[in-house]
């Protein structure tokens, strides 16, 4: 990714949306970057991990999104251009900082990338973050492509500086994870180290200041209005004698644009890229002489509601079609099929090629699952073994270990958010008659598992607190965290110890085990279950994908003579390398990494290393 540092204006390169955002920040002279990883925003940080140092900016993985927002706020308040990025639900974590930061504003440009995930590809919900722009008074841009993501990022720094307000770039998966051709602009030097000029009246949000800062925010937003009206990112694409008007934003715009171009449809399109403040006049002029307008936007009727209101002034007879009329859904992301169907209800669209209709097979589903050799599987197995016939509630968290929800592990009963396993476990322990486990990862522990631990000790909750420490932030692509001894820029760092923090909080039972030592791990869990109060068990073993050398370890083999077809391995572990072929169990050697978990579970000693013939 060193190519992102090339100072060759006009150069064309194939970039992921997230890489394009990084380039946009470089073209704006960003000086500070901070984040907590989360799909679909993670590759912004992954890219900076490799090149932030070479570019000359500061970059960090903060312990969570709120901290990332706060360190970024301080940088921008000091006069150093700053970017923070996170997934949509990360904004919830950071919202406390963000809402009041909008009152105070910033001195240098501050850009907040809020990456949404319509269709919930890799998230716990598909909330529409555009409403944050209203709630916080945040100027907002919505890109449609990697090229536009780069342009908007660059522009957002200037806009933010002009208004002295943070600016939000709201993306979705199909922009962050789209790859397209991006044309470079000029590279700018990173913003240098700044000097913070004190201004308590502005930056100290005590009530008397907050009362002054709120009108200040509204005044600045007022200045943003005219900028939105003439924004280059709000673009009209008219046709002669249109039969339909369309207003679209984000990924939804792409599909309707494509449909029009492919079929020569008589549709005039207004593409909106700056949607807060809303360009009322611009939209008003577009719909003034229209008869019917279709609004194409994913998730909530954010634009549609605005258009309804604007039409009352500009064109009361206008027919507004969208989610309220059932032409589109408030659920999930759109695609060419969805948009074609909606447009076809209003004007004639030539049919597409007849799709192939093969006979209906019942196809097996293929949900994501723990990788072969994943240490989490071993932890879950040991917990179940330790419990025996006793029932327990498994309070789960955000990370790969959530995949314990699948058969045959079934080790997730409750999950709502990052770090939420711990508070919920405490709640279950006080309000039910069941044994309780909290499962969370090492990165999640530092993110938000720690305050809940302290709260649990204080309130004398009673559960087993399992930190599944695989030495990385695995699900999002192996980012470092406070426990790894490495910073986001690749430098050494103090290793913050989960065990020391737990002991420091007053937990008496703190044990660390290697989950692949199944007997020992089971024994520790048995004691932890019986221990009153919170007992912390750290199951420590690196993610198999992190330790690439392990991937070449010798796969195991089932000795078919010794195998008694009890299917203990298949039924208890749910490892995709264990395959039933007829009555036999065989090991897929392209998937097995030789972790030995199944060999330890087999009661007949039938699984072992493949012997050379």
């Amino acid at each position, binding site marked *: 990714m060193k190519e992102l540092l090339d100072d060759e204006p006009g150069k064309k390169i194939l970039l992921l949306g997230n890489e394009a955002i990084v380039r946009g920040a470089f073209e704006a002279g960003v000086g500070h970057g901070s984040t907590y990883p989360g799909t679909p925003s993670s*590759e912004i940080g992954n890219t900076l991990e490799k090149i932030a140092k070479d570019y000359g900016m500061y970059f960090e993985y903060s312990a969570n999104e709120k901290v990332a927002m706060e360190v970024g706020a301080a940088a921008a308040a000091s006069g150093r251009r700053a970017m923070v990025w996170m997934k949509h639900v990360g904004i919830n974590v950071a919202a406390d900082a963000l809402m009041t930061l909008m009152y105070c504003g910033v001195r240098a440009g501050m850009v907040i990338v809020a990456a949404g995930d319509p269709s919930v590809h890799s998230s716990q919900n598909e909330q529409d973050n555009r409403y944050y722009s209203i709630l916080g008074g945040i100027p907002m841009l919505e890109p449609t492509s990697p090229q536009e993501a780069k342009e908007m990022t660059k522009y957002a720094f200037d806009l933010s500086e002009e208004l002295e307000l943070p600016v939000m770039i709201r993306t979705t998966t199909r922009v962050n994870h*789209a790859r397209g051709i991006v044309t470079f602009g000029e590279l700018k030097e990173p913003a240098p180290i700044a000097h913070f000029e004190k201004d308590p009246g502005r930056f100290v949000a005590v009530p008397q200041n907050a009362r002054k800062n709120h009108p200040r925010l509204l005044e600045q937003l007022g200045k943003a209005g005219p900028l939105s009206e003439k924004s280059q990112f709000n673009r009209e694409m008219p046709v002669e004698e249109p039969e339909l008007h369309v207003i679209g934003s984000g990924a939804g715009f792409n599909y309707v644009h*494509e449909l029009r171009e492919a079929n020569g449809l008589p549709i005039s399109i207004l593409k909106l890229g700056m949607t807060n403040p809303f360009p009322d006049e611009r939209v008003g002029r577009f719909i003034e002489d229209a008869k019917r307008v279709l609004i194409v936007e994913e998730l909530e009727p954010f634009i549609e509601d605005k258009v309804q209101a604007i039409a009352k002034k500009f064109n009361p007879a206008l027919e507004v079609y969208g989610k309220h009329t059932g032409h589109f859904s408030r659920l999930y992301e759109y695609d060419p099929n969805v948009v074609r169907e909606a447009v076809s209800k209003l004007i004639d669209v030539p049919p597409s090629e007849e799709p*192939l209709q*093969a006979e209906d097979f019942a196809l097996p589903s293929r949900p*994501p699952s723990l990788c072969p050799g994943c240490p989490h599987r071993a932890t879950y197995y040991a917990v179940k073994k330790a419990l025996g016939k006793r029932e327990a509630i498994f309070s789960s968290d955000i990370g790969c270990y959530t995949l314990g929800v699948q058969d045959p592990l079934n080790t997730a009963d409750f999950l709502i958010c990052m770090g939420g396993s711990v508070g919920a476990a405490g709640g279950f322990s006080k309000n039910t008659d069941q044994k309780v486990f909290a499962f969370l990862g090492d990165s999640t522990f530092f993110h938000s598992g720690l305050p809940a631990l302290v709260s649990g000790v204080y309130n004398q909750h009673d559960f087993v607190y399992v930190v599944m420490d695989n030495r990385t932030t695995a*699900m*999002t692509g192996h980012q470092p965290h406070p426990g790894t001894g490495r910073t986001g820029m690749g430098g050494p760092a103090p290793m913050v110890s989960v065990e020391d923090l737990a002991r420091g909080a007053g937990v008496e039972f703190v044990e660390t085990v290697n989950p692949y030592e199944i007997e020992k791990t089971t024994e520790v869990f048995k004691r932890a279950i019986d221990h009153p109060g919170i007992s912390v068990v750290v199951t420590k073993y690196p993610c198999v994908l992190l330790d690439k050398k392990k991937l070449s370890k010798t796969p195991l083999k089932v000795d078919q003579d010794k195998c008694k077809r009890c299917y203990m391995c298949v039924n208890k572990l749910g490892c995709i390398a264990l395959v039933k072929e007829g009555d036999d169990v065989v090991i897929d050697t392209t998937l097995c990494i030789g972790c030995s978990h199944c060999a330890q579970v087999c009661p007949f000693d039938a699984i072992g290393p493949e012997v050379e013939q």
Partner: protein
Amino acid sequence: MNLQIVGVGGQGILLSSKVIGGAALDKGLDVWMSEVHGMAQRGGVVVTTVKIGEIVYSPLIGDGEAHAILGFEPVETYRAIKRAAKDTWIVTNIAPIVPFTVSSGKQKYPKPDEIFQSIEKVSDRLIKVDAKKLAQEAGAAIAQNIVMLGALTATDALPFSREEMENSIRKNVPEKFVELNLRAFDLGFRSAKEQM
């Protein structure tokens, strides 16, 4: 040109789409792709879209709009079938990856031959590739993705010559694996040509 690449997380699909995208960039064509990152990569279904043309307007494909489907796994090829039309090339790996929903006995995996026969009833453009065998022949099972690219290149679906694709492989895979991958590409290419 609309291409849908389907398979299972961990099969090297991202690299294969990058090779194709790189070839488009080299040729001065517009390209827009959609990838899968995050949770779905953990052994789940991976659907990658590659669209190439003078101007490309979106990164996704509607039903019947694919000019080619490159399936890294039989069931996943079948799952994508409605994206294909009569003239769509369907290039599929023949080796199943059995999901744990099947290995745990809850669901059934259909016989791959039945899947292929079913596709052949509605399409005469199915090409079956024993990618694992050919990749091992080339030197490493992990090169299955490039075997599949070779087979796809043998059809006329991509707007690239064999040489253009080989050049993109040279640019996009680590140098020490170039020879291995070019062998894998050749074996896939020939396997498809034999079936056409």
